[in-house]
């Protein structure tokens, strides 16, 4: 298997090549890369792929920001069912 076909984000089936191409084309930040490809936006909430997506995004930048987490965390950090969100259980 070629390195390029390698899946990075399993939930959304985004490959290494998808991420690299998108990054090169738009020269984007980690957040933009995520929004354009959906990498990190799947069921696991990015728990599996986030650091890899982050590495690809930051491989252009020379110095990592020490006090800013590259990909923001947003609630909910765990999957919540629609029934629970909708307040069916009272």
């Amino acid at each position, binding site marked *: *298997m*070629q*390195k390029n*076909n*390698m*899946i*990075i984000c*399993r939930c959304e089936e985004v490959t*290494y090549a998808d991420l*690299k191409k998108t990054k090169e084309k738009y020269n984007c930040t980690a957040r933009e890369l995520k929004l354009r490809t959906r990498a990190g936006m799947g069921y696991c909430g990015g*728990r*599996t*792929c986030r*650091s*890899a997506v982050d*590495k*690809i995004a930051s*491989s252009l930048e020379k110095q*990592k*920001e*020490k*006090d*800013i*987490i590259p990909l*923001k*965390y*947003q*609630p*909910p*950090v*765990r*999957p*919540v*069912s629609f029934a*629970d969100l909708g307040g069916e*259980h009272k």
Partner: protein
Amino acid sequence: MHNGIIIGAGPAGLTAAVTCAENGLDVIVLDEYMRAGGRLLGQLYEQPDGKWWNGIKESERLFQQAVDLGVQFRFGTAVSNIEYLDDMWVIYTEKEVLQTSNLLLATGAAESPVPVPGWTLPGVMSVGAAQVMTNVHRVKPGERGVIIGINVLSAAIAMELQLAGVEVASLTLPRMSEVTDVEAHPKEVMDSLLHVSHMAPSPFVKLGSKFMKGDFMKKMGAAFYPKNGVKMWDIPIQLRKAVIEIYGENQVEGVTLATINSKGDVVPGTEENIAADFVCIAGGLYPLAELAAIAGCPFYLVEELGGYVPLHSEEMETTLDGLYVAGNITGIEGAKVAAAQGHVAGLSIARNNGIRSLDYKIMDAIQHVKTTRDHAYIQFHPQIQKGRSKIQDQWNTYQRNVQEV
């Protein structure tokens, strides 16, 4: 209403709960897993003094102690969000919303992925999953495995697998790419491995730690490292080879290895196949701090601690009122250090609840964290002390800035 809520029932959270309850507080512990212990559950090894460290027993002991003191537990309860409203921390779980003025985040650590071509095949798992299968569920992950990623944790788990009668065909590196970094560098790996020397009866690693002190020697070490690797506990360790692909039709059938030079580049034409029915990926651990990030804690990147950690004091307070952290969320260390930190956090929470004359106890407890660290059996990063002082400096700077404003 509770005096305190603890998220995470690992060694840090359990010890904090026991400490709070001993000081008369009414606390509740939430954990998404179905039983207490966190990552302690998977740990099973012989310590230098010859005694066995059995994580399951250790977890049960702590859990029972907490229950006897009246601590309440909610298992299978994942926290999806927390926020600070009207001087109270509001904790959202699937089924209920809880409130408290003192909240401890003891959510532990998570494993970093190392994408390798073929890593989505059935039979590929994280090394931590193999540890849980073997030591907790007592199910063999397979008959013969390859571990990709050489670090303290994967070396320890390789040994545990072997004890369970599972063959580890090789401990090797991933191929270097944009998605791997230090874990694919022979020199860096060598450096970190030297710190398992006290665990290893192997003369190689022991020798290593003596001769590899200087940076120059380490470079030479990786360059002159025998092509066919060396053995630790009879497991071949291959720093001169890297996995370029995991292959198999419907599930793992093996890996393709190739020789790499001391910079980590593949030497063409050196590919060979190794049969295996499972593969473990070991990318190292990072602090699981999502909830602290959502809460709005300031963070700082400290490589020695495993990644981004929320700013915190030695008393285990964060910069936010009534929010505490303990255990691996503050940096990757062994279970005993996590428990010692949990004790400090428990005392700080008790003090914040108005329990008096705890200052000396807190000082002692902080000292105990340091002694435990100095005697730790497993050290995940060779420069852990340095990492701890970095975060302490950042905390001090932050406090000074706040005072000036």
